[in-house]
């Protein structure tokens, strides 16, 4: 599959949860296409299903019905092992609370996804250094997460997400735990990754200021997407 086709195609996607006897529908028959190189911000009220959508795109949750296609191939029906391998190869995750390993240094945290490859130790080290350099934190390579500020930790998390060179970065409230200045730095970094390295970025956020960094803003409400300017903002 070439980059001329869509990166993601969601077909008739539904996700429901059962809480006690109650059945809660998050989406019903959702369709969506995401192209290579997009930077999408997904906004919406709490409980609208933003994070659930991100989980489905990242293959860490499965739809109740419908299909998730990545570069023309279904991924929602892969076995757990194949899905894990697909995630390792194609998707980078950035979380609100960084989720770094507290016992590992920044460089070791970044190296984690490369343990799933066949790269030599020397090559892994080179890539880790490059990733840390891109996010501007190479000088903190030997520091543990607790020795870093929130913004620095999120930079390490971004380096971890990009080190294996995935096509897509899924960001769940990446600036939700940061002050404005740090948030702007992180968002600028994401923008740079999108513009200079052609990474497809799908970011869930509550923050309208963060959403402005994206090329496309979507508003998720009651299981339906509404483009910005079509009644929201």
């Amino acid at each position: 599959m070439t980059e001329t086709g869509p990166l993601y195609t969601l077909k008739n996607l539904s996700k429901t949860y059962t809480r006690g006897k109650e059945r809660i529908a998050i989406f019903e028959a959702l369709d969506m296409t995401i192209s290579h190189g997009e930077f999408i911000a997904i906004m919406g009220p709490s409980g609208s299903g933003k994070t659930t959508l991100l989980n489905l795109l990242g293959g860490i949750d499965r739809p109740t019905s419908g299909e998730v296609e990545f570069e023309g191939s279904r991924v929602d029906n892969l076995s757990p092992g194949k899905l894990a391998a697909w995630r390792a190869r194609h998707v980078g995750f950035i979380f609100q609370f960084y989720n770094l390993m507290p016992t590992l240094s920044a460089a070791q945290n970044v190296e984690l996804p490369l343990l799933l490859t066949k790269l030599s130790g020397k090559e892994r080290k080179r890539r880790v250094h490059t990733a840390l350099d891109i996010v501007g934190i190479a000088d903190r390579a030997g520091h543990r997460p607790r020795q870093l500020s929130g913004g620095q930790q999120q930079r390490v998390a971004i380096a971890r997400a990009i080190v294996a060179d995935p096509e897509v970065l899924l960001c769940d409230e990446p600036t939700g735990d940061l002050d404005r200045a740090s948030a702007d730095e992180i968002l600028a970094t994401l923008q740079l990754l999108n513009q200079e390295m052609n990474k497809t970025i799908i970011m869930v956020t509550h923050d309208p200021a963060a959403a402005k960094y994206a090329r496309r803003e979507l508003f998720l409400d009651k299981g339906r997407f509404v483009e910005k300017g079509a009644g929201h903002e």
Partner: protein
Amino acid sequence: MNDATLVRKGLFRKKMRAVLLILSILIAFLIFGVLGAFYSVFTAGVDVAAANRLVTVNRINFTMSMPFAYWGRVQQVEGVDNVTHASWFGGYYQEPRNFVQSFAVDPESYLAAYPELVMPEDQRQAFLTNRTCLLVGADLAGQFSWSVGDRIPLLSNIWQKRDGSSSWDFDICAIFDGNEATVPANYAMFHYDYYNEDLAFNNDQIGWMVINTTDPSVNDRVAREIDNLFANSPAETETSTEAAFNQAFLEQFGNIALILVLVIGAAFATILMIVGTTMVMAINERTKEIAVMKTLGFNEGRIFGMVLSESILLSLIGGLIGLGLATLMVTGAAAALAGFLPGLSMPLSVVLVAIALMIGLGLVTGIVPAINATRIRIVEALGKT
């Protein structure tokens, strides 16, 4: 960095907890190593017992003697190939703390009964022909730096000579060793005649007899016939195989095997519960970290292997340090107890069993947390619904 680094980092995530767990495992394997080494040296006699050797003792107690004449009568029993006899001398050298395990024997039949005792032929002949010769085991000779040609006194705290002395003078004319490492060489023996002729009391009595049968299949019949020979006499006998006799001798000290199993079993059961519970808690604390690893693409098999490796590594660190300390303690004790328990050392069999136990302990304590780790659902663990 590799998976081993992650396993090590995970194990020492909370250093104090890891150290305490290692200490508890260390103590269990320290106990196991020390008791195992002592058990091994205690039972060495059972292990080297010959299948065709019987031992006849006084039925009342093996410390009671029996008439010398029994020796000749047993030789007439059909199926008996060789009979020898021995009497406990219980000697010491120079002072009572220098205990010397020693027996008065009939030299020719004794060496015929125990072909596993080896020595140069000229020394063998010297022992057979020299009435004052002391045949010394190599370990015992080493302990007191004795060599062939030395003349030494051995004193008994049981027997006395007619002149009131309890010292017998001997010429060390031969030094024996075992043909295998498991054969004890920590005792000495001398001519019964030389000892008996000067005894102030209990003359013409022997301690026990050792019978070589023509074939192990006739053991039961020969034992019965020997005991029947002396039934209703003032000194009735009890004949059993050498292995059974050695085992019974050991049981004078208590059922060592049972004590060993109970002590080690209690220690291991406790350790199993402590380590198992702690490992479950430790993995629960890392639910989110494991979920992140799964998100990054680590599959369930790899997560399972890493958690299991962590508990095995924990067990191996504690166990190997414990076993190392046990070896040091046994080595120290071996020097101090050379006279009483020669050959005390850390046997390879104990080391191998200990390593198997370490791996087993790691597997048992790690299996539940490893399964729990594979069952972690990413979405739930990351707090997302």
